[in-house]
């Protein structure tokens, strides 16, 4: 189950999806909107995604994890639109026969999701708003800086 939703994420739905009689372990990660970031007081976050490609990249993360660890099933749900403080923006659940695989695959999924799934978050804070990731020129790949090509 790899999908976007503009509603509240129901973690129990992910848990039901990954549940399996052959799985002894379920590791879950939930990312929630924090009330502060780098000294800014956050009011809410706005998430935008590239539908289609986002789900495709999440699905790939799951497939990659399954080639590296022995996992039973994975679910990733990412919310789009406005996410108030304390609510989940992303939930990942991974079931596996043993816990080491479940933990490692879950960690891999959230780490990779943050690097390459086409989803963006705008922080709405007291006094302004900012697209996270775009406030510096930093990038995870060797892609050339657009500005330097002129």
């Amino acid at each position, binding site marked *: 189950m790899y999908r976007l939703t503009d509603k509240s994420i129901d973690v129990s739905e992910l848990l039901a999806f990954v549940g399996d009689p052959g799985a002894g372990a379920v590791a879950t990660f939930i*990312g929630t909107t924090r009330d502060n970031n780098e000294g800014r007081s956050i009011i809410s976050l706005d998430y935008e995604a590239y539908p289609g*490609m986002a789900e495709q990249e999440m699905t790939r993360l799951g497939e990659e994890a399954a080639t590296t660890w022995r996992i039973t099933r994975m679910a990733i749900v990412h919310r789009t639109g406005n996410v108030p403080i304390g609510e989940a923006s992303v939930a990942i659940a991974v079931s596996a026969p043993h816990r080491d695989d479940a933990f490692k695959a879950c960690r891999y999924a959230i780490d990779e*999701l943050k690097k390459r799934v086409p*989803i963006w*978050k705008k922080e709405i804070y007291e006094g302004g708003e900012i*697209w996270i990731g*775009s406030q510096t020129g*930093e990038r995870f790949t060797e892609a*050339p800086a*657009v500005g330097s090509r002129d």
Partner: protein
Amino acid sequence: MKVRVKLFAMLRERAGTGDDLQDVPDGTTVKELWDKLRREHAGLSGVELRLLYAVNSEYVGLEHRLADGDEVAFIPPVSGG
């Protein structure tokens, strides 16, 4: 040929649109399309971000040649999670 342009997040806001239908010559590259967009949308000309480029949902390089009907996405640094 016609290609569909997708702009996201800061790029979408700067361009004033997230979805743009463009008519370009055969053999146009991603880079040439981007240069055209920057000429047409003043808000994009100052962008100093390192972008990624996807054609039909697959990441490609700047020199990738487009085909008629392609969907071309300009992807600023992602920040999901």
